[in-house]
């Protein structure tokens, strides 16, 4: 029929085949006939053929290849449905040969117009991964791309792919975190579950424990709340708290925990989903709250979970398991819903047992009476397993709550007269455990139980009674031997477990009351000696040696009594759910209490850092910081974006130092950050038309959020600023002296060198000067300019000015960290160097704030302390000549060991470079003690390109992949040119071989705060390592004296490797307009530099 021309016949045939597949019959012999029809026009036939293919392609790989061209054609189809289904089938046939084809198809589909096709691509990723795990790296790229997708359709699927392929690459989420949070509510249900689970894990690594401080505050209230609980768990918790207290007395003084706004965002956006109809979503949110929310807020999930108890029994089963775990940790949460856990006669047994478990966990002094009354009813149930569980539950209540112990015991004793043997047996076992806690009072119960031995047949119960009698034979001296006599009679007919207890009983009686029982014991031991079970034979032999005194009886027999009648600790009856909370709630592993394949551990909260304020900032900026870190491979692509981010962090600091302009600045950055992260989702939502209200709400709240954040930032900033400034001023006096000495020394050392160097220094110091200082300086300069209106030799002019400057600068010379580490300035004491660095570099966020007015040494993060397991590395471009090789750029690295243990043998390995690049490694650091920091300098020849230098940083235990990526501005060194020279060079360049190609001009509008000379100079020198061409000489070349408010600034430098000139001109005009011209032989460097300087000047 498959060969027929009629579609209807084909369809009929295919239907039969598929029906056979569905029943599990093998139809693989029809494969060739079916594959022929893959190109069939009829869509239903086609679909069924696809179904067949997916099922059997794995078995007949060669034949399956015949069909691939059809799919490839399908991938290009204009109909998105056909594109998607072609990709789906293509990725579903598990044939290894087509892996490259699949890879290609996935990559293409990932940038398809239709979100549906992109979704299918996301689905295809894990399929390909399971087929060929070696494609992982490429797949991660695709995932990264899809993660940035803004449609709700794709989000769920791609996160699922992420979880399956690379759950450890949490860094991919950073950029998309907020977007995912905001989209969450519109994602389809299944996607929600996956995203929420992933975000739980993410948040655990990125945010601080919200309950960290509360534990201290709550300690007092905790006690009153739980009353005088004897619950083990509670005690533990308290102990923990005490530990914490002892460990950090400073913690008490710590300011109250402020939740990260992103953490809050997650909690807020997931909360409505508690109202989802999908139990899995509700559970996912519940576990998220349980693991992430502050204690006070966890309560909201209880109601939703209780609602799930009215769902299907399977759902109840899972939910109850989770509730049982939660109720141990947070009992108060479910107490109001106690009655919802009452058992119904129609519940299946497993549900009943779980409900009992929860009820037991919830029991406390106030509600125990109601619970016990409820239990009494349950005991009458016809479900015997359930009754047994109830009795155990009563036992647990009795152990946990001292007040009701006697009541429970009495109730259980009454049960001993129950007609059902199982009930009696179970009660015996429980009573045994209870009695062990306070045996003295209850000898009559023991007597009662001794009588029961005649009736009870359940081995476990018999064994329990015998043990009890043996253990407390001194309380019942008359009955015990009698029981032994009876038992000895029936010994051969007993179960093994009972036999063992009989032997035990005999031994104990022999020791306490050997007169009456000696013969009996020997009889029992003789019986046991010939028992079939080797355990019993062993036991008998062992006991005989121990208790029966013989000539060669060892030293042990003296202690026999102590051995047997030692005081035994009472058993602790505890919930089987006690330790389950180390699994992520709601997971399969939690349910089974065993690690399931592919389970991702829920990471612990990040450790508390020693300095709380630092951590707050750090955690806040982590998102941005780490993006710059991790996206290094793509730096070239998005360098401008990264830059902006960097700037964003920096900017507020500028605004702060410049007082009044603060508000506008922060407003700017606010809109900036808001637009960068949130605008996407806003557009997305409003795009759906009907949901415009929602999106509005959303964006509103976003703005609020941003505002909050902004405020936070400011607060932190201020806090930060103060201490640093203080310390600065403290040190400054010392510093000044040293610098004075230093500069003098240097002058005398070598005029020629200092010429250049000091020039640059004075330039930078010019820019360094603080506002008040700068004003004074401006005046001076003007004076200087005015005083030399005549055309004096430029050189002289320069020198004079230089001197003036350096003298002037001495009082406010900033402790620039740059010179200390370089060999040239090695005379500076090491300790001071580290001090200074500590000041400037100890915190990546601090440094731009405090040092930004100085030579603008920006430090970059190479290794964060979390990824580095305590080792953090930052690097900066010190802008000093690297003495071993002039073609190299000096990179100053600072290693900080935040871990508790020492790090040894820090060195570099496995340097991966682009062709032509060279690296001079830093000397191995033998030992980096805990808490210390060390700096080292390495040289890299970047070959005038911005390619990153990748290498491994090795410690004695671990290796970290790191990379150093130079901003283009660091690839040059400043040179000194006079204005005339500058102009000559400029002309030369222009008239060179490629006319005009060497010049790039850009018009720009200067930032409001960047219109005076100093800020321009400062910003340009921050962006690039250039030196300024003295401006005083402006006059001579432009005959009509330029009005003082439209000066032209010139900067000069050479690239490090090829020594090509880089000339930068910034000509200012009215109202902040300006023209930026860059002349450079290297076009690439020129264009990149334009971008960077443009950014620096306009922001």
């Amino acid at each position, binding site marked *: 029929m498959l060969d027929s021309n009629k579609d209807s016949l084909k369809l009929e045939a295919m239907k039969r085949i*598929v*029906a056979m597949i*569905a*029943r*599990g019959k093998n139809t693989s012999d029809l494969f060739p006939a079916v594959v022929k029809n893959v190109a069939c026009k*009829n*869509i*239903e036939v086609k*679909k*069924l053929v696809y*179904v067949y293919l997916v*099922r059997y392609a794995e078995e007949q790989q060669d034949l399956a290849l015949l069909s691939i061209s059809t799919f490839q054609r399908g991938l290009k189809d204009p109909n998105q*449905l056909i594109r998607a289904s072609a990709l789906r089938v293509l990725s*579903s046939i*598990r044939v290894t040969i087509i892996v490259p084809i699949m890879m290609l198809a996935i990559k293409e589909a990932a940038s398809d117009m239709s979100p*549906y096709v992109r979704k*299918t691509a996301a*689905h295809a990723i894990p399929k390909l991964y399971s087929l060929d795990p070696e494609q992982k790296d490429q797949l991660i790229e695709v995932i990264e791309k899809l993660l940035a997708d803004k449609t*709700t*359709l794709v989000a769920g699927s791609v996160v*699922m792919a992420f979880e399956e392929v690379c759950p450890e690459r949490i860094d991919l989420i950073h950029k998309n975190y907020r977007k995912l949070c905001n989209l969450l509510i519109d994602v389809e*249900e*299944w996607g929600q*579950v996956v995203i929420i*689970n992933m975000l739980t894990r993410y948040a655990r690594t990125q945010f601080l424990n919200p309950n960290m401080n509360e534990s201290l505050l709550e300690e007092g209230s905790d006690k009153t709340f739980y009353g005088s609980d004897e619950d083990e768990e509670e005690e533990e918790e308290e102990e923990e708290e005490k530990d914490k207290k002892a460990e950090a007395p400073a913690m008490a003084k710590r300011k109250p925990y402020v939740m990260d706004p992103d953490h809050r965002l997650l909690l807020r956006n997931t909360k*409505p989903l508690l*109202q*989802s*109809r*999908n*139990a*899995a979503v509700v559970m996912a949110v519940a576990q998220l709250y349980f693991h992430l929310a502050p204690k006070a807020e966890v309560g909201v999930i209880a109601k*939703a979970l209780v*609602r799930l108890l*009215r769902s*299907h029994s*399977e*759902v109840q089963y*899972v*939910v109850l398991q989770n509730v049982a775990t939660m109720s141990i940790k947070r009992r108060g949460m479910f107490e109001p819903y106690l009655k919802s856990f*009452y058992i119904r*006669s*129609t519940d299946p*047994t*497993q549900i009943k047992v779980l409900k009992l478990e929860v009820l037991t966990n919830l029991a406390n002094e106030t509600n125990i009476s109601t619970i016990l009354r409820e239990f009494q009813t349950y005991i*009458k149930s*016809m479900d015997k397993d359930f009754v047994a569980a109830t009795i155990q539950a009563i036992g647990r209540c009795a152990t946990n709550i001292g007040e009701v112990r006697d009541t429970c015991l009495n109730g259980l004793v009454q049960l001993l007269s129950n*007609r059902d043997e199982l009930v009696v047996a179970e009660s015996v076992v429980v009573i045994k455990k209870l009695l062990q806690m306070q045996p003295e009072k209850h000898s009559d119960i023991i007597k009662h139980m001794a009588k029961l031995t005649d009736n009870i047949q359940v081995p476990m119960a018999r064994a329990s009674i015998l043990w009890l009698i043996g253990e407390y034979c001194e309380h019942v001296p008359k009955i015990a031997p009698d029981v032994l006599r009876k038992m000895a009679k029936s010994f051969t007919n007993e179960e093994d477990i009972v036999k063992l207890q009989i032997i035990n009983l005999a031994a104990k009686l022999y020791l306490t009351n050997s007169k009456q029982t000696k013969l009996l014991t020997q009889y029992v031991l003789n019986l046991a000696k010939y028992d079939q079970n080797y355990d019993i034979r062993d036991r008998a032999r062992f006991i005989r040696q121990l208790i029966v005194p013989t000539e060669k009886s060892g030293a042990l027999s003296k202690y026999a009594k102590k051995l047997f009648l030692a005081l035994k600790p009472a058993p602790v009856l505890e919930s089987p759910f006690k330790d389950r909370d180390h699994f992520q709630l709601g997971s*399969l592993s939690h*349910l*089974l209490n065993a690690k*399931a*394949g*592919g389970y*991702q551990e829920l990471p612990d909260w990040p450790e508390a850092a020693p300095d709380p304020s630092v951590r707050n900032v750090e955690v806040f900026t982590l998102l941005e910081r780490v993006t710059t870190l991790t996206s290094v491979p793509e730096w070239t692509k998005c360098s401008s974006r990264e830059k902006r981010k960097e700037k964003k962090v920096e900017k507020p600091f500028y605004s702060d130092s410049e007082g009044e302009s603060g508000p506008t600045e922060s407003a700017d950055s606010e809109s900036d950050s808001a637009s960068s992260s949130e605008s996407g989702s806003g557009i997305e939502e409003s795009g*759906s038309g*009907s949901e415009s*209200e*929602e999106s509005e*709400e959303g964006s509103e709240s976003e703005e609020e959020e941003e505002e909050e954040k902004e405020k936070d930032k400011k607060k932190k900033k201020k806090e930060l600023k103060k201490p640093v400034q203080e310390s600065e001023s403290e040190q400054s006096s010392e510093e000044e002296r040293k610098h004075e000495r230093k500069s003098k020394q240097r002058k005398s050392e070598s005029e020629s060198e200092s010429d250049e160097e000091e020039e640059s220094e004075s330039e930078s110091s010019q820019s360094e000067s603080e506002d008040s200082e700068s004003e004074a300086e401006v005046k001076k300069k003007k004076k200087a300019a005015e005083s030399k209106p005549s055309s004096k030799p430029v050189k002289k002019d320069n020198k004079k000015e230089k001197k003036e400057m350096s003298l002037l600068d001495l009082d406010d010379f900033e402790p620039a960290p740059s010179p200390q580490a370089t060999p040239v300035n090695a005379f500076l004491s090491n300790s001071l160097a580290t001090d200074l660095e500590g000041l400037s570099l100890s915190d990546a966020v601090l440094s731009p704030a405090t040092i930004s007015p100085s030579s603008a040494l920006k430090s970059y993060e190479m290794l964060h302390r979390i990824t580095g397991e305590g080792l953090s590395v930052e690097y900066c471009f010190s802008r000093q000549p690297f003495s071993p090789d002039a073609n190299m750029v000096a990179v100053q690295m600072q290693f900080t060991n935040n871990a508790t243990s020492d790090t040894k043998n820090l060195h570099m390995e496995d340097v991966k470079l682009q062709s032509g690049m060279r690296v001079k490694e830093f000397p191995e650091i033998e030992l980096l003690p805990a808490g210390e920091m060390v700096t080292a300098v390495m040289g890299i020849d970047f070959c005038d390109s911005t390619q990153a230098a990748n290498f491994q940083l090795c410690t004695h235990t671990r290796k970290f992949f790191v990379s150093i990526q130079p901003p283009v501005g660091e690839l040059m060194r400043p040179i000194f040119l006079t204005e005339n020279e500058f102009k000559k060079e400029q002309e030369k360049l222009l008239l060179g071989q490629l006319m005009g190609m060497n010049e790039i001009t850009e018009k720009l509008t200067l930032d409001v705060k960047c219109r005076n000379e100093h800020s321009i100079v400062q910003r340009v020198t921050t962006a690039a390592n250039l030196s300024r061409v003295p401006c005083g000489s402006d006059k001579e070349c432009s005959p009509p004296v330029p009005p003082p408010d439209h000066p032209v600034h010139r900067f000069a430098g050479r690239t490090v490797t090829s020594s090509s000139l880089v000339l930068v001109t910034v000509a200012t005009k009215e109202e902040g307009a300006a023209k930026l011209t860059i002349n450079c032989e290297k076009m690439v460097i020129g264009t990149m530099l334009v971008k960077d300087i443009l950014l620096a000047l306009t922001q």
Partner: protein
Amino acid sequence: MIHSLFLINHSGDIFLEKHWKSVISRSVCDYFFEAKEKAVDPENVPPVLQTPHHYLITIYRDKLFFLSVIQTEVPPLFVIEFLHRVADTIQDYFGDCSESVIKDNVVTVYELLEEMLDNGFPLATESNVLKEMIRPPTILRSVVNTLTGGSNVGDTLPTGQLSNIPWRRAGVKYTNNEAYFDVIEEIDAILDKSGTTVFAEIQGVIEACVRLSGMPDLTLSFMNPRLFDDVSFHPCVRFKRWESERILSFIPPDGNFTLMNYHVSSQNLVAIPVYVKQSISFFEMGPCGRLDITIGPKQTMGKTVEALMVTIHMPKAVLSANLTPTQGNYTYDLATKVLVWDIGKLNPQKLPNLRGSLSLQAGAPKPEDNPSLNIDLKIQQLAISGTPCMVALTVERIFS
């Protein structure tokens, strides 16, 4: 995620299997059969089983087991919820979810499963979307199909898949635009022997049947939304609007759906509409016992009580029952020891009564406690929680 699915009937035959990844042998089900043997009662089979290489997650619905095989960590509720969704979909398509129905439509079911999961991850579970891709069988269509060779598989992408409202298809047109809402409330109460309420709660469901053209945007407000203790919604309901204004605002799916579930836990307000006088006693002497049950109305607010039914789980020792009802009829299932008395409409003038004798197994000890009674009843046109009736339904805009 979900690796394979097996459908198993009550007697333990696998009658459908579907694999989304590579094929897993049927023999994994043996672990399940083992557990099933052990559990005696099908409801007591643990939903999650661990086998050496796989995990089995099962649901029991309509006397069928839906058994899914998974290999890696996945939230169990995720799978359970999905399996129920499969059962719902089958029920939605064929009106029933039984072995015979599935066997008759095996190809359609297979195609459905293919669409619902891709590589074990749910793809399309909204019935509106599925119905566009695979049309449910109707008599008319099957006739047309056989004549024209047409198919019941859609060839365009369901628009719902692409939008933010996957539950609604585009281009719906009706000549009569209508929307119906059913409020179904259930009281769940546990009473003790003397008739006092131990625990009572009200659960409500709002079932909707909306047949409106275009993309209607509806709002629904309640008289007294504060009564709701806890609610859960169809995904179409906008959560934020509910949180801020207590108004249901939604774009409904086309056709039947459950709009919301709610819960009212105002125990004091719950009025149990009937009372029961019962006496079940077993005599010490002789293998017999007496049973006498009378049911009367109480606080029915003038409505008639319908579909009244009493179910009693008898003790194991009860061999047979010889009873005479004044109304309705009774059955006693010997195997499960369940006595069912189907009364029907409650007549306040002539109270239904069931009395007679029970015969016990000879020699067995007298059952020590009285069995519990389960009473089911229905009252039309009465919301027991009283107030949560909606008052306003506004259709904001219809655009097509």
